[in-house]
């Protein structure tokens, strides 16, 4: 009896295991067939308008939700459901840092989300692989007049960059090129403490960085400050250094025009001067020796802790410092135009406005959902019926605009807002302001009156949209102080293959040089760049240029 029990137990265990495996594989196939039935049924006969969209997205570093809300259930998902009948279902989400990895691996299994975002390289790969839905008709039929307006407001270049063989394969994440150019942020309370003036050229700026490092600008008797902030990727987000390179006439990650043909800015000799300047600063202790492991968000924490006095960056970078301002009300920043060498004026680099694309899987039964969501988002944040403090940025400065799956903005809206808000502040006449602009206006007034409620967020508005705000600097760039990226076509074939290696070797070599490496490594980098596909890319880019 006992014997029988034991062997029975063994067999049961074995069977359980085998059936478990069988169940798993069976489960998968039945699940997927159910899904395909679902989507097939939804496409042909579904009359109710209830549509489920499976999406994927990165979770931005500064995202937070009001109590009880989540990525799946928030003001925007509720709006999608009530206005469009779209039930948004995130099949996966990751921290920003892991997004590309997770996307690349999940692409291999062939199970794509219905709607998700990609970069230019991934877009080209997916298009070549035939995995994306053609949005040409859907876009022209579904997009509202306002959406069409916004998406074409740059003369159609953004849409062109998502067009392959005449077919629109993605919705470009419309934004502003000039809005992504650098301003020079300087801590003015430190300037005052040291009795110095804002720098007028590169030489003065470098001196200021030294003074901020060595002369104890925070007056705590300790040498615990660095002049220049720098993030580990060198470019983008927070505390990048494109603006410093521009000051030397160098244009990283851009295509420049030389003698009538297009060349990569990365390999021009001017880059060397900028790298040398950074290296000198690093050697003199003006750059955090650990910058190589700190991403933008981490650097912003150092800024919050009063460790940094100068940073290049985006006009909105102060938005990451509102908590720091609350903790330390004496901290003052001001945005300046970037500076050039000697008496030369610097041209700021204006990257191509689009680096992210929203795509729809070829298997998705409702490609129009993507355009509907875009319509709704543009309308609710920037259109006639916009309610910006509900759907864009709430009164505490919380970025609600990061909730929607698809987000675009009118390219000039921030620059226009600064002009309008400044004019209204001068005249006191607010009739010309739209809803979003009115919000900024009220915040600035509230800040100036010293109201305690959301004081730091209102300070942020003054820093950006005020008469001396960072957007005023961008508006000034518009008067012939900008240098546009000369290439704005889709990713070329060789770019898709070689960009990974090229970008990595750029980051590696540049970081090494900054940290004291031999400047001659730059020449080696140029040689490598050319032989590793760079020359071919240059040909492709010039081919594009001549056909344009």
């Amino acid at each position: 009896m006992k014997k029988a029990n034991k062997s029975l137990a063994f067999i049961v265990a074995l069977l359980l295991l085998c059936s478990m495996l069988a169940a798993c594989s069976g489960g998968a196939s039945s699940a997927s067939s159910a899904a395909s039935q679902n989507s097939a049924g939804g496409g042909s006969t579904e009359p109710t308008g209830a549509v489920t969209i499976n999406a994927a997205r990165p979770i931005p570093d500064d995202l937070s939700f009001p109590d009880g809300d989540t990525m799946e259930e928030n003001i925007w998902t509720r709006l999608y459901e009530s206005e469009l009948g779209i039930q948004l279902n995130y099949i996966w989400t990751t921290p920003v840092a892991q997004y590309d990895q997770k996307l690349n691996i999940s692409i291999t299994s062939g199970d794509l989300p219905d709607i998700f975002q990609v970069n230019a390289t991934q877009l080209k790969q997916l298009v070549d692989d035939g995995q994306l839905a053609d949005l040409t008709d859907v876009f022209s039929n579904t997009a509202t007049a306002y959406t069409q307006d916004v998406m074409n407001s740059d003369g159609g270049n953004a849409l062109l960059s998502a067009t392959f063989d005449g077919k629109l394969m993605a919705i470009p994440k419309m934004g502003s090129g000039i809005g992504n150019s650098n301003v020079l942020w300087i801590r003015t309370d430190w300037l005052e403490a040291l009795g110095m003036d804002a720098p007028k050229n590169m030489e003065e700026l470098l001196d200021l960085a030294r003074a901020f490092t060595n002369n104890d600008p925070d007056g705590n008797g300790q040498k615990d400050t660095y002049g220049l902030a720098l993030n580990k990727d060198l470019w983008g987000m927070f505390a990048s250094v494109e603006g410093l390179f521009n000051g030397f006439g160098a244009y990283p990650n851009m295509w420049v025009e030389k003698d009538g043909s297009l060349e990569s800015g990365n390999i021009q000799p001017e880059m060397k001067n900028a790298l040398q300047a950074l290296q000198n600063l690093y050697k003199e202790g003006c750059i955090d020796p650990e910058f190589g492991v700190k991403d933008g968000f981490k650097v912003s924490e150092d800024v919050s802790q009063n460790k940094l006095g100068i940073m290049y960056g985006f006009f909105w970078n102060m938005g990451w410092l509102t908590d720091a301002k609350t903790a330390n009300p004496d901290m003052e920043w001001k945005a300046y135009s970037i500076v050039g060498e000697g008496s030369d004026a610097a041209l700021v680099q204006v990257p191509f406005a689009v680096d992210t694309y929203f795509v729809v899987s070829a298997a998705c039964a409702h490609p129009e959902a993507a355009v509907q969501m875009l319509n709704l988002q543009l309308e609710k944040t920037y259109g006639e019926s916009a309610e910006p403090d509900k759907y864009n940025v709430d009164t505490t400065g919380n970025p609600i605009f990061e909730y929607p799956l698809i987000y675009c903005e009118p390219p000039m809206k921030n620059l226009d807002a600064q002009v309008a808000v400044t004019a209204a502040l001068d005249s006191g006449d607010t009739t010309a302001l739209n809803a979003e602009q009115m919000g900024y206006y009220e915040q600035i007034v509230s800040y100036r009156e010293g109201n305690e409620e959301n004081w730091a967020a209102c300070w942020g508005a003054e820093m950006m949209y005020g008469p001396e705000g960072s957007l005023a600097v961008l508006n000034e760039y518009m008067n012939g102080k900008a240098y546009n990226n000369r290439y704005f076509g889709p990713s070329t074939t060789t770019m898709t293959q070689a960009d990974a290696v090229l970008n990595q070797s750029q980051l590696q070599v540049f970081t090494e040089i900054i940290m004291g490496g031999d400047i001659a490594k730059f020449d080696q980098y140029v040689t490598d760049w050319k032989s590793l596909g760079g020359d071919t890319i240059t040909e492709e880019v010039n081919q594009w240029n001549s056909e344009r």
Partner: protein
Amino acid sequence: MKKKNPLAAKRMKTLPLHLMILPGAILVFVFSYLPMFGLVMAFQNFSPAKGFFGSDFVGLANFRYAFKIPGFWQIVYNTLLISILKIILNIVVPVIVALLLNELISTKFKRTVQTVIYFPHFLSWIILAGLFIDILSPSEGIVNTIIRFFGGNPIYFLGDKNWFPYSMVFTDVWKEFGYGTIVYLAALTSINPTLYEAAEIDGAGRFKQTLHVTLPALAPTILLMGMLSLGGILNAGGTVSASGSSGFEQIYNLYSPQVYETGDILETLVFRLGLGNGQYSVATAIGLIKSAISCGLMTFGYWLAKKTANYEIL
């Protein structure tokens, strides 16, 4: 009565054994063998939409591209340098510590030391990355605070490309020497005490006994451990699993672009190319080269182990 067929009886007897092994064999087949068919993509221009059966074959193009990657040979060199140093030090240090421990009179103290030095072996590289990033930081870490206290200049162990490979070797030895020590201690206790008695009668002192009795007795174990680690050489130390090796886990979690030149190893390259950039085929090709060489070295190691130490895994 008819006599039973002996063969049938034998089959009857081994059937339960087959059944017992079957669930594990199925699991291993599914999760280890099925993925091996995917190696075919090293010879394809793999396209997820077309899958393994529909993707175009491109011969050795992926391999040729891999060799053209800037610094590919530097990466091979890094891999070899880091792993060879790890193999050597992970033998030398534990042997010395085991010898010292063996000389201790107090068993309580011996036990305590053993327990303490073995502990880091059980911590993940995630935990240890958290630990080392903190204590080795040039500005805040305790190690550099001590260096500064003695008047030295702070060293950026994880961010200076000249230091990085050695930091990897040192932190790995820190984690693993306790494990090795236990292995050698076990071997030490099995040495026949009459050998020592004989040496003592011959007038050999403690040091000479160590030199002439202990070390030769340890030699097979030392050789064995060394040879077994040969297989892991291209993983920059550690054993292989689906998710990579401990060499990968260590370096992936501690490196940054500024030390790629000296710290990048084959597995981190494979990871960045494959997952970071979607270059699946090239990544698989490099992984395949690596696996093939590892397999060769491991076979060689076992062959040597069998020849010299009479070790058999079967």
